[in-house]
Each structure stands twice: as C-alpha cells, then as structure tokens.
C-alpha cells in the first residue's frame, strides 16, 4: 500500500457510480475484508450498508454555492458539517468512505476538501473511485452527463460486472473510458472484487506523487487533421463549404519535394505556426506561405488562392467535413501525397483527456496568467487538471492539481538526474487540444 509518509491527515475515499453499478457491493466488501483499517462511512440517503458497521452516517447531499467570487464553486454543506463533527471522534477511525448517490456530481465533493480550511487541515482526499456497470453503461454513457462526469473525475475506475460482457465490448469500453480520463487507473472486476490496495490509499490527489501517464497518451498530436502535398500551387485554389465548425485554419508551407518524408519534415514547423494568431482571410484572398490563415465558410463557400511552387496545405479539420476541394484550371486536383492525423477530439462536446509533454522551462508569470485565466474561463468544463512543471530559475519541480477552478500547486523535490520537462493533463468537456498546446507553448521561456 502506498502511504503519504508524513501526512497525519485522515484519508477520504469517495465512491461514485450510477445506480446499480455495484457501489454498495464494493462498500460492503471494503468493510468486511480484513485490512486493519477502521473506517467511518458516510453513506447517501439511499445507502444500505449491509454489515453491522459501527460508524455509519447518512448524508443528505446538500450542495451549497459559495459566494466568495468563485462562480462555479459548489461544495457539499452536509459533508462539511458531518466531517467536522466526526473529526471530534477521530480516535475511532483512520479512514473515511463517502458513498454518493448514483446521480451525484463528484465536483462539489472534491471541491469541499479544497475550500473548507478546517476539513483540509484534518482530512485529505485520497481518491475518487467510480464503479461502472460494464454491462449497462452503454445505455447511459452518451445520454447521462452524470456517468461521464463520474468517469472524468475518477482516480480509479472499476469496470464491474465484467463477467456479463463479451471481451470485445469490454475492450471497447475500456478504451472509451481511457480516452475520457487518461489519469484514472482502470480495473476490470466481477462483483466488485478488487484488491483493496487499488481503491484505498491511492493518493490520487497527492501532490507528492508524480504524475504517471503512459507515453502513448503523450505521443504527438497535431493541431491539424490533414495535410496534402501539391507539386505546384500556381493557379490552384482551395474551396471550402460550410461545415460543422464556424471556422477552419489553413497553412501553406513550401515543400522540398512532394513526398511523404518531406511532409513529415514539416510537421514540427506546421505545429508551431498553428500556434500563431491566425490571419483572417476572405473569399478570393491568397494564402501566404508560413502564415496560418482562418476562413469562415458559411452559406457561401470560401475560395482562397494557393502560393506557387511545391506546397503542403495543412488543414485543421478533415477536408470532407467542409467539402474542401483544391481546384485548378482543369477542375479538381488531387494531392500527390496526403496524410491524415488522429483528430484532437472526437466531438467538441465529449469528455476527453488532453496531455501535453514538452521539455524546456516555463516563464512563471506567463504560466500563472495562462493557467489562471484558463481555469477561470474554462474551469466549469475542466474537471481535473494535474501537472509537473519546470519553471525557469526554480531548481525544484513545480507540481499542481486542480478541480474545476480550484487550484493547488507548489514546488516539491529538486530535479535530479532527469531531464527538466513539463507534463500536464487536463480532463474536461470540449477540450481544444490545439488551443491548450498553443497556450502552453506561449509560456515557454
């Protein structure tokens, strides 16, 4: 089991999950297994702790808005009261389990431990554990925001009732869950049978624990989804019709040769250029090499002229979404080579994880302005954020985590025997990877 070495605060585990997913089964399993912990349970109003457990308190899930200027900050008033009172009996337990109702939003639960000083001094949020009914979740995953939020907030996801699901479906569910929340540890269970060390003492909110993210997740993603190589742009135009997004960004870069290799050589430069403020182009304007342009095709398509010579045309979205055609004097022209890239996100409204990893030092003031502004403006849609950062002039790693708009960060240990680098992960709804990467990149010193 992993311990917080010097933290005397009582750990708190939050159990979430849709009705019938297996929360109560897991809760009873935790309470009956021999694990040497004395656990106080705060169960929801419909809870039914099935064992004769001595310290069980029923909670009403009273969500209170805070009026201290934090627009989206809500807390669980009942937890503040109950936990404040329970802490007077702290000799009787050494772990707290909070079971939420199936429809509960984990946000206010987590925020409670950030906002209330008294609780923050006595208790530490260990992890949010979300139990998912692997058999029935497909009915809800696209329609019930509670399900996606509970998965998005989780430090640990149990795909329960796995025995009722075909292996292929289970793999599909697991990859869906990982796309939504790449920080969570995912376990497959039957009847909520899980090693308790996977759900208690997880340290999901611990700043001391370094961010661990698998490298595949952080492999480069690009702010464009398509590039096409044309042997000569002279006389060619790109025509775009109305699509699912109001604008499309385009970038033309001179190309050494119309080959796959030559295109790939340009990826880094194109990524950098996509971070620039795009130049708004109107119908009939010309694309300037190396300058990212933004067009807004509406009911009337937009036509822009290509620069002459061998050229690579990078497009933010897949061309078919905007019925894009490159047209010459003799009609449509196909690219000599075209490459598609994995999209940043499946759909704007979806919950996803965005990971950024980059070497280099960050300017603390710019970082503060960017991250502060991002969480203030987009905090309602960003469920969790975490990072290990390299700040210029700071010999120690800077670690942070956030829940919605609430942010907690500090320097921890010195960088030692490792490359100074930055790793950030955001989990949220409608995250724009390109925007986040551009914002981050602008903070590099």
């Amino acid at each position, binding site marked *: 089991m992993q311990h917080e070495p010097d933290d005397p605060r009582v750990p708190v585990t939050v159990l979430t999950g849709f009705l019938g997913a297996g929360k109560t089964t897991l809760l009873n399993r935790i309470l009956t297994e021999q694990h040497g912990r004395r656990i106080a349970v705060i169960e929801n109003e419909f809870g039914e702790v099935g064992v004769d457990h001595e310290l069980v*308190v029923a909670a009403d899930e*009273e969500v209170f808005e805070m009026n201290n200027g934090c627009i989206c900050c809500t807390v669980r*008033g009942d937890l503040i009261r109950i936990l404040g009172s329970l802490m*007077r*009996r702290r000799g009787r337990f050494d772990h707290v389990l909070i079971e939420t109702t199936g429809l509960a939003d984990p946000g206010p639960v987590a925020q409670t431990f950030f906002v209330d000083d*008294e609780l923050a001094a006595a208790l530490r949020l260990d992890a949010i554990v979300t139990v998912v009914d692997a058999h029935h979740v497909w009915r809800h995953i696209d329609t019930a925001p509670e399900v996606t939020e509970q998965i998005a907030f989780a430090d640990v996801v149990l795909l329960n009732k796995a025995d009722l699901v075909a292996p292929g479906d289970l793999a599909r569910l697991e990859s869906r869950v990982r796309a939504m929340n790449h920080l969570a540890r995912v376990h497959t269970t039957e009847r909520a049978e899980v090693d308790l060390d996977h759900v208690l003492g997880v340290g999901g909110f611990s700043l001391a624990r370094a961010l661990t993210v698998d490298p595949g997740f952080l492999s480069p993603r690009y702010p464009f989804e398509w590039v096409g190589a044309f042997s000569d742009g002279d006389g060619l135009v790109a025509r775009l019709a109305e699509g699912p997004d109001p604008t499309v960004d385009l970038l033309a870069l001179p190309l050494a040769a119309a080959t796959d290799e030559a295109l790939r050589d340009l990826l880094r430069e194109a990524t950098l250029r996509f971070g620039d403020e795009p130049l708004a182009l109107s119908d009939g304007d010309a694309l300037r090499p190396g300058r990212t342009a933004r067009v807004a095709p509406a009911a009337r398509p937009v036509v822009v002229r290509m620069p002459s010579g061998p050229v690579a045309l990078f497009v933010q979205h897949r061309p078919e979404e905007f019925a894009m055609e490159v047209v010459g004097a003799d009609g449509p022209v196909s690219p000599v080579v075209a490459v598609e890239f994995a999209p940043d996100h499946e759909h704007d409204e979806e919950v996803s994880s965005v990971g950024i990893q980059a070497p280099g030092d960050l300017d603390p003031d710019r970082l503060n302005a960017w991250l502060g502004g991002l969480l203030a403006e987009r905090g309602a849609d960003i469920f969790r954020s975490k990072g290990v950062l390299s700040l210029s002039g700071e010999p120690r790693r800077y670690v942070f985590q956030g829940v919605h708009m609430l942010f907690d960060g500090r320097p921890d240990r010195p960088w030692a025997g490792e490359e100074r680098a930055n790793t950030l992960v955001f989990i949220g709804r409608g995250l724009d990877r390109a925007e986040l990467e551009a914002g981050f990149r602008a903070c590099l010193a």
Partner: protein
Amino acid sequence: MPGLTRGAPAARRLPDLDDPVAAVAWAPDGGRLAVAGISGTLVVLGQDGEVQARVGAHREAAVDVAWRHDGTMLATAGQDGRVRVWRPDGAPVHDLDAGAPWVERVAWQPGGPALAAAAGRVVRVWRDGALVSARDDHPSTVADLCWHPRGRRLAAGHYGGVSLLSLADGPAGRLERPGSLLRLAWSPDGRHLAAGAQDACVHVWVMPDGRDMAMSGYATKVRELAWDAGGRRLATGGGAQVTVWDFAGRGPQGTRPLELATGDEAVTVLAFAPAGRLLAAGLADGRVSVWEPGRRRTARATWSLPGAVSALAWSPRARAIAAGTEDGALALLPAGQ
C-alpha cells in the same frame, strides 16, 4: 496540568471527562455545571467540582446541553436523533424524537417552558414533553437555532438565510441571504440578529425590520459569535484573531473593528461575560484568553489547557469560566473582575 502564562489566578482542573467536550452549560444559579461529551455522556458537576450525575445520555455523540431558565431541568441533544430532558441529578424526564438522525442544537426558551431543537431540516418545539410545533420545510439542514432574548420568536439558520418562527403565530418570515449560515446570535437587547457564514463573513440584521449588513474579509468560515451583555459589541472569530464590532451610535458601518491578536492560533469559541465587559476566547492550541475590549488591546489573563478549546461558559455572575477541550480536559478559570 493546566499552565498559567500571565499573572492570573490558577485554573482549577475539574475531573477529566475522558471524552472530548462538546458543550458546557451553567445552571442559572451558578450552582451546577453540565458537560456533554462526544461519546454521549452527560456529566453534572457541583459547586466544588464533585460529580453529581454521570449518565450515558445518547447512543452516539452528545452535541449540546442547555438548562431551563429556572434550573429545574436540562436538555441534551445527540447524534442518535434524540433530545433528552433530565433532572439535575441525572434522572430522565423526557426522551424526545427530534425528527432526523443528527440533532445539531437544543435551546430552551428564555424565561419560558418551551424547548426547541434542530435536526436535519426539522425544527421541533416541545412544552413539558409535548410537541407544540414542528417544521420540516427548511430548504436545507438547520445549522443553528437561537431564541429572541424575550423568547417570543425562534430563529433557524440554514443555507440561504434565517427562518423565523413565532410560538404564537407559526412561521414569521424569512431573512434571505445567499450562502450557508452556520451560527446565529441574537443580541441581548433583541435589536440585532448576527449570523456567521461558511463564506467567511458575518451578516447582521437590524430587527425587527430586517435591514441587513455584511462584514467580510475573514480568513475562514465564521462559527464563533458572541454579544456583550449590553448588546453593543459583537465579537467574531473566523480565523486567528478576534474581531470586535461596535454597534454604538451609527456603527459599525464606517468604523474600524477592534482586532485582538491570538498569536496565529485559530479562535474556536467566544463568550462575553453575562455582566461587565470581559470577553473570553478559546483557541485551537488550548489557550483561553480574557480581554476587556475597548479598554486594553492585550489579554488580561491567559490560561493553557491540553487540547483545542471546544466549549466555554461564563458562570452566571461572571466570576469564572468553565472551559472544555477536545482532549477531554475541563477547568474552572477564575476570570472575574
């Protein structure tokens, strides 16, 4: 043993409760002290600190204790959903269902026989063990109850404001206020109703018209409130200092409050003496300090007890303070002028 840090008379340790102290209350004649403990115990001590009664009052934590105005009975509230009424010798009188699992507060009517309790969203009022009023329509859990000093009205604080109840006429209106109210205090002259809030501020309503004002800028939520005997000064906690607002004249608007330093230690309880002008503050490190606000900025006396101070009560003639701590220590502090 309790330490002594300033030239004040020594504290007298009372028998330890072996149980974190939840509340202490003096009988109106000052002859007895009732102590409620977190494991559900009620202890009644006599004038010389001798234990006159010790009963297991509640199956879960006892959270509050209060004496009837004539000293013939006292009531305890527990997290077992019960309000229990006792004779001073520990004989049970009534065992009342508060209507929800956790009782937060129990309060006797000033000068009257009515007993009120808040549990969950429910406020119940009994007279001689018989239910005379029950309201379960509060928008959230009622965090505190406070009687008007003349006992005609009862204020219940919750998320979003204060609900007023008139014993004669039932519901008597609501004072709206965003945020979660944690503690109420009606000034002894009945002119002001103060509320400490989760949002690190204090609201005060001018009664009976309900005009209100807000004092903000506290470091933490405010659960520590105390009015002086004349209803002029309101002492507030909410962090590592005591802030005293002066309601004389046009105040406190446009005035600077008095700030009493606690040496970076959080204030946990405040109590003004029932006569005179002394203010006692209990701190998280076990100290109890007594000030004379408006006269001196430094504490007149400071005692030190083991464990965070969880309960303070001045004896009726303001001669001594009974103090209890989360470590179960009890002491009499000879704080009178």
